């Protein structure tokens, strides 16, 4: 089933709590002007928040219940560059890259609002490239740690839950980023080919002739970025 927008509502929405109550008391839609796809993405992200929340809480319990000392993240994740030991330098760059990609994604969404086909596609490609760069650096970080002897079942630095939590949480997040990159490329290709300018139905394109898929993609991307901020804070900085 698909939905197509009709004429915009004649009355402007009431602001504040009153408007909230009016929307939820109304027929047809609880979130006015929110399409099915966007509503679904929001609810999925709420559910996914609980997944990452549970991962982080489980990690904290593991960290507080283990009897062995927890490794010092600043030392484990330090790189030796030019004779200087730089703590967390790679993670800092990764975080910078991912947050930058959120910026380019926001610009892509902004271009999509004005239906600028080429800038939207290019900015999405740039976002995908930054995302792929993030995953690439994560691969580097994983290989470095594996080389140093960190395994899910133990590591030379201290508590074995350190390696287990690290691989599990960053792996789960990295999977999210990778899936995001794939879908960014798919949507960017659709934008480039002008599929969102025509009123036709193809896969992941509801035939409304608008760029909403870009915005929904953006919601997912910003979410993945936000999750990283928490992982950064709780795993690397703590």
């Amino acid at each position, binding site marked *: 089933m698909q939905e197509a927008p009709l004429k915009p509502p004649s009355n402007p929405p009431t602001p504040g709590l009153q408007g909230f109550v009016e929307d939820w008391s109304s027929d*047809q839609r609880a979130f006015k002007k929110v399409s099915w796809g966007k509503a679904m993405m929001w609810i999925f992200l709420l559910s996914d928040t609980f997944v990452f929340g*549970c991962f982080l809480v489980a990690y904290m319990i593991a960290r507080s219940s283990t009897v062995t000392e927890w490794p010092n993240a600043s030392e484990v994740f330090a790189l030796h560059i030019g004779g200087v030991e730089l703590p967390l330098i790679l993670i800092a760059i990764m975080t910078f890259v991912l947050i930058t990609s959120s910026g380019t994604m926001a610009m892509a969404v902004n271009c999509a609002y004005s239906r600028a086909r080429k800038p939207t596609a290019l900015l999405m490609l740039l976002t995908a490239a930054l995302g792929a760069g993030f995953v690439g650096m994560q691969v580097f970080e994983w290989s470095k740690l594996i080389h140093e002897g960190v395994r899910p079942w133990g590591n030379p630095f201290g508590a074995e839950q350190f390696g*287990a939590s690290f691989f599990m949480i960053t792996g789960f997040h990295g999977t999210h980023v990778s899936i995001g990159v794939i879908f960014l490329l798919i949507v960017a290709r659709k934008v480039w080919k002008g599929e969102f300018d025509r009123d036709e139905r193809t896969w992941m394109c509801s035939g409304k002739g608008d760029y909403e898929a870009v915005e929904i993609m953006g919601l997912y991307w910003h979410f993945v970025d936000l999750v990283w901020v928490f992982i950064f804070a709780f795993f690397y900085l703590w």
Partner: protein
Amino acid sequence: MADLPHDTDPQLPPAEVADVMPPHAHSWWSHYVFSQDAKYIAIQYSGTAIAIGLVGLVLSWLMRLQLGFPGIFDFITPDAYYQFITMHGMIMVVYLLTAVFLGGFGNYLIPLMVGARDMVFPFVNMLSFWIYLLAVLVLVASFFAPGGPTGAGWTLYPPQAILSGTPGGAQSGIILMLVSLILFIIGFTMGGLNYVVTVLQARTRGMTMMRLPLTVWGIFTATVMALLAFPALLVAAIMMLFDRLLGTSFFMPALVELGETLSYGGGSPIAFQHLFWFFGHPEVYIVALPAFGIVSDLLAVHARKNVFGYRMMVWAIVGIGALSFIVWAHHMYVSGMHPYFGFFFATTTLIIAVPTAIKVYNWVLTLWKGDIHLTLPMLFALGFIVTFVNGGLTGLFLGNVVVDVPLSDTMFVVAHFHMVMGVAPIMVILGAIYHWYPLMTGRMLNQAMGHFHFWITFIGAYAIFFPMHYVGLVGVPRRYYEIGEPAFMTTPVEGLNAFITVAALTVGAAQMVFLFNLYWSSRHGRVAGSNPWKATTLEWLTPVVPPEHGNWGDDLPLVYRWAYDYSLPGAPEDYIVQTDPGPKAPTAGPL
């Protein structure tokens, strides 16, 4: 239906979303097998769930045979017994009840009751079923795996769940169980997102949230809860899978097994219990809330009366849903917890009894002075109320720390949760099938077989679980292969155990009559016609019964009133359908 031209009705707000038909099936395969029609998906879901539920039923028979007549059946070894217990519990809670209520009734009733043509994303909805089927197949595969299925108990507590002393612990049983759960959660999420968005964003004109039948409210709230509770199980399953496969120690403390020190160390088994019950307790209400909603509708239709306190019923559902997320540790009083936490969780547990009691009172007040038709759905609904009250009251016992500690892990607990989330929701499922079968097939279920089925099931369920409370009170622990004659038990329970087993076998056999009825009536049942129960809700008002692809013919229904205009004074008939624009009737206002 409205006489007014469809799009110019002044009583209703204009359509916000264009009415587009869902994609048509082009071949036999896409029509009957890879169907994207929620109604077919519902039947596929229910059929699969009932099939795996039969496996769960047979497992309970085998378990009861051992408990009732210990030492007689050689093939029931202690290992096999634990495998039966585990798989019975997991199958019934997750793969039967959750799947039937949300995947089955949710898929069938939500689009019809809110006046939509289908779920919002039919393709994703179809994927949901096929992943669920895959999860069931993986679960079934564990029966044929070397070492058999896991025997860890349905709660899968570590460390024992993945150690070699537990059946399937060192082999593939536990792995297949966890993989199956992960698949189930992925599949359910796809369906659940659909149900929630359909209720929120795809209602027809005039259908406000406060005009929704309580069935939709129950399923909707349960689905939201499932989307927030299943993540905890997903995480717990992934972590335990890593503990088992990669040798991580998330849940595994340092231990010695058969004189050998294992490589695990430093993990927290309690962490698993917290994650499991953060899912597990909402799960109780994920099963109960759809039952609450459906039973409210059954009572209203068959007592020809509006649901008493509709708005309070809605808020009670929402309140129970919210509260159920902060009571989980009452399953863990004996696991080791700070006494203040015990106090907190006992308090929240008792508070949740308040909205639940409101619902029970409102069901009884709905019956009060109603024009009660003792039809089969009504009988099952009444059966639900008494069973649920019974199970709920023992829940108050177990919610208190000091009462729970001696009763914990006895058969009393088994009796409690079977009453409250086994028998009671199954009563509703059965009543709902008797109620909506005419809609799905166009024929009524056979009355004689139905009455036989009801009375055996209802009386039999009490025969099973009432004595079981007593068995627990005198001290029989749950999950014991054989109790023997321990010194602490002064009262013998062999006779009662044998009695319970005979009752369980009888009730199980009566379900075969029901299944035969489902088959027989689809061919020979009385033709129902449209709206045989004279109900007001939209699902009975489709132009063709059973509803066809797209549900509504050319025009979507327009809704002018709430779902419960029964026996209105002065009205020509004792019900006014939701699409009747007639004289203004009392409706629930905003929120």
